[in-house]
């Protein structure tokens, strides 16, 4: 389901990015009154325009629906094996290597740490 919302800025409002974000925030206030199920089904296109006919309508944001996937234990195992193939050692060695300063705590590495934490939770 797609909902398009068009907003006209008031003449005294300057068409700044900050204004657009304020409108988006207001929009979310409105959404909160809706049921969560409906909110999840909707895709929003927010269009904010100025009251001057010369200016094109500017699409500023598309709020994507949240994605939720239910994974299996085998899929987690496959993810961890992908790490081992790429790095040449098991995720079990990640924390010791981070602790020893042998690896930088990058976003990618942290993702594997998180998956390892989940794996440890399942297989303590």
């Amino acid at each position, binding site marked *: 389901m797609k909902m398009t919302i068009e907003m006209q800025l008031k003449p005294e409002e300057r068409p700044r*990015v900050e204004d657009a974000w304020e409108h988006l925030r207001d929009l979310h206030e409105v*959404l909160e009154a809706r049921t969560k199920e409906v909110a999840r089904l909707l895709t929003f296109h927010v269009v904010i325009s100025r009251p001057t006919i010369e200016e094109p309508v500017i699409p500023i944001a598309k709020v994507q629906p949240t994605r939720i*996937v239910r994974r299996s234990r085998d899929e987690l195992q496959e993810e961890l094996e992908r790490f081992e193939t790429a790095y040449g050692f098991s995720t079990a060695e990640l924390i010791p290597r981070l602790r020893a300063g042998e690896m930088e705590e990058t*976003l990618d590495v942290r993702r594997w740490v998180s998956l390892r934490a*989940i794996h440890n939770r*399942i297989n303590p």
Partner: protein
Amino acid sequence: MPPDWVLTAEDYTLWVERVVAHSGGFVPGGLAFNFWPATTDEENDSQVLDLLPCRLFFHDGSFLDFSLQVDTDLSHIDYRFHYAPSGGGMFWRKDMHHGHEDDDGQLFHIHCSVDERRPYDEVDVEEAIGEALQQLWHHPTYHPCNDA
């Protein structure tokens, strides 16, 4: 802590959605959650929640990279909140993970800079985003490490 109405992992996803929405920021591609099995017991269908890494952009171009995992009781297993200026780099990063507990005596810490880490209180997604907004509004006079 999540509000009282957050009773299940599904509620938790909605709470995160709302917190992100209220921040005024924008996550390209939207939020993505994985549910992983919580036990090896085939009969037990309880699941842990995994928020995949995402980037929340604010209007000034600064952004918060974050991910988190919560257990069946909705307590944190692991998290990462990294707030950065528009050009990249780091204002601060609040982490919960194994690796520094021998030094810190706990899993929660903050990286005040690339070279400085301190023990820090546990934070949830609402507090971390709120902290980023505090810094956004009051930069450069505000920094969470000033209070740590």
